[in-house]
């Protein structure tokens, strides 16, 4: 999900995500400024083009030395696991939290995972989903599309798939733990530059067109590749005000906006927010809490993965 927060700055992303999915980052407030690389999953590729600010260089140095940016004194749990299971972490808002409820919810999630293999996927990955559907003649429906958004925590976790079928954009919002989901296949596993790709709704259809009989691509490494593709927006009107936020994946935003909108964009920009430690603290889970949760789910999840691998072989 939101791996690039450290590099993009927190402000717009936080607001877009409704401060929700940020929680899964679980960034320690102390590390945010010094090591943006901590937001990267296992493939720790740094952006070679954009080495403008001092923080980035610090992050790059840290990586080149081969030290783990994640756990300095954290417990033994593999914190990299957090990117795989973002919905396992609780909601960000303190007064909505309750440890007992979170525990019971996690139990339910794991017992659902014993019945369906929920693979690792990110915003930008292409999935095929099979769903029980009462209204279809054969009682199942299948959909292929690119994941443009992942939201919410716990059993409420959802994702949106988008495709263009017969020149018509089609989106389907699914719940990850819906017992009607029969199968989730990852056809192409990759990440994109932004935490969500809702702006594909206002782009030419070629960016979100995938054949319905698409075959799964073969993965050569364990790393999740980062697709640096930048898309071109259609002229206005848009479904959302894309100029208000700083998206890395949009190429031609300034072409379509008026001078007034450009001014507005400048006013709304909050470059200082990446230094706001309190904001990061409120929007993320402490590393210790995260390690505890990962420790709790680790065994079940690993057993489940192995079971799936054996079945696949």
């Amino acid at each position, binding site marked *: 999900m939101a791996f690039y927060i450290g590099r993009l700055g927190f402000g717009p992303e936080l607001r877009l995500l409704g401060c929700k999915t940020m929680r899964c980052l679980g960034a320690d407030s102390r590390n945010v400024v010094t090591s943006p690389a901590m937001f990267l999953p296992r493939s720790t590729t740094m952006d070679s083009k954009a080495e403008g600010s001092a923080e980035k260089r610090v992050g790059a140095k840290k990586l080149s030395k081969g030290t783990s940016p994640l756990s300095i004194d954290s417990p033994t749990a593999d914190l990299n696991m957090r990117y795989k299971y973002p919905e396992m972490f609780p909601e960000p808002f303190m007064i*909505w939290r309750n440890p007992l409820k979170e525990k019971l*919810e996690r139990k339910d999630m794991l017992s659902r995972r014993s019945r369906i293999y929920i693979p690792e996927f990110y915003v930008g990955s292409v999935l095929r989903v099979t769903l029980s559907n009462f209204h279809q003649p054969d009682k199942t429906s299948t959909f292929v599309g690119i994941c443009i958004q992942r939201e919410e925590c716990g059993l409420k976790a959802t994702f949106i798939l988008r495709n263009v079928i017969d020149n018509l954009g089609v989106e389907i919002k699914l719940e990850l*733990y819906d017992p009607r989901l029969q199968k989730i296949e990852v056809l192409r596993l990759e990440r994109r530059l932004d935490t969500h790709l809702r702006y594909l709704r206002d782009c030419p259809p070629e960016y979100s067109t995938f054949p319905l009989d698409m075959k799964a691509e073969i993965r050569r490494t364990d790393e999740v590749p980062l697709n640096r593709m930048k898309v071109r927006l259609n002229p206005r009107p848009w479904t959302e005000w894309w100029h208000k936020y700083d998206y890395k994946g949009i190429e031609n935003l300034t072409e379509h906006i008026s001078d007034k909108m450009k001014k507005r964009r400048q006013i709304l920009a909050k470059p200082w927010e990446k230094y706001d430690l309190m904001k990061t603290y409120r929007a993320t889970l402490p590393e210790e809490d995260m390690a505890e949760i990962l420790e709790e789910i680790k065994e079940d999840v690993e057993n489940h993965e192995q079971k799936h691998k054996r079945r696949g072989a």
Partner: protein
Amino acid sequence: MAALRSRVLSVFQGIHASSKIPLPLLDVRFEVCVTQVRGNRFLGIPKFRHPYWHLRKDRAHYAENLTPENKEFIRETIAKDYGPPSVISGVQTYDSPLKNIHKVESIEWFPGVRRTSTIAKKIGIQPLWLKDGTRVMASLLHIADNHVIRYNPPEQVIPMRHRKKVVPQKTLGKFGALIVGAESADPQEFTKEYCGLFKESGLPPKRKLARFLISPQAVLPAGTPLNALHYRVGDYVDVTGQTIQRGFQGVMKRWGFKGLRATHGVTKSHRRPGNIGAGGNKARVWPGKKMPGFMGGRYRTLRGLQILRINTEYNVLYVIGQNIPGQINSYVYVHDSLCRHRWVTEAKDARPLPTYIPKDSEGSPPENLYAPDVHRFDDPTITFEIVDTPVVRTGAKIAKAKGSKAK
């Protein structure tokens, strides 16, 4: 503000007493770290006085300057009275062999019997799926460490006074009052007189006390624990809670008024109520006119909610609905439903009376109990069977057939 400051300072001194940091090293700026607590500020309502079965609970936390030996002694004394502190069913409590444990005997159901309600904590909301694939939202109500504290027989019950409501005379003397407490706590948190309320039951003082009106036949002895199995899956309950405090709100938020127009010459009145009364002889505002004011913080009941699932290990009820009054982590009262078609009318449907009594022969109940139409998360994926639909004759065809017969 002065009161707040003194409170914070006392906490600050308490921290100082417990730590070994010399006083001058702690900055006085610590005062600023006060979280604002929003309270009820209704105008014209008399100051809250405790009812006769409840006493002043909160005490001033002044600096006691206890030595470590003193603290150790207090801890030992508490452990001697109430047992060592321990976590039971996910709740921090005291592992006490109850002093007044009586054997509860079940009674026979009779029409109009009313058994005790329980105090629960609203801990969150999550989706559940039914077997036909429907998604429903369920609220999780945690019945945390509930015990019966005391019973007042009907002749001792003084009905609650209310400014507007009049207590119907026919209910007087009909119901006894059972006082139930939730969540045991350290007695040092409360006043001496509040702790005295629990002497009879031999329990540590509870964070929350509530009084429920019950039939005298359904009485429970003091010290009886109440758990989630007091209810059954599929039962209907009414849930009472204090709604979320919204503060002073305008008519649009408080009463759902439409406000005035955004344009067409309207200035500075986009969210105002508009006209509030007529002129002439009636040149005044009628009583009960919907106006801006304090919103929320009232006790409200949501009725007729079905229990979809019960977690017996942690005593959690999964009740249908996502609009149970109260914030998450606030206390709510769970009553047997008094809705007309939801209450028990026959002895065969009777709920456990006066409460669930575990039997040794049955063994421990399963961890999760589900209502029959609820999908379990470890069940296989929901699939729908392909059914060959029979050919249905249309009206025209039937008419044709009939016509041919007539010929």
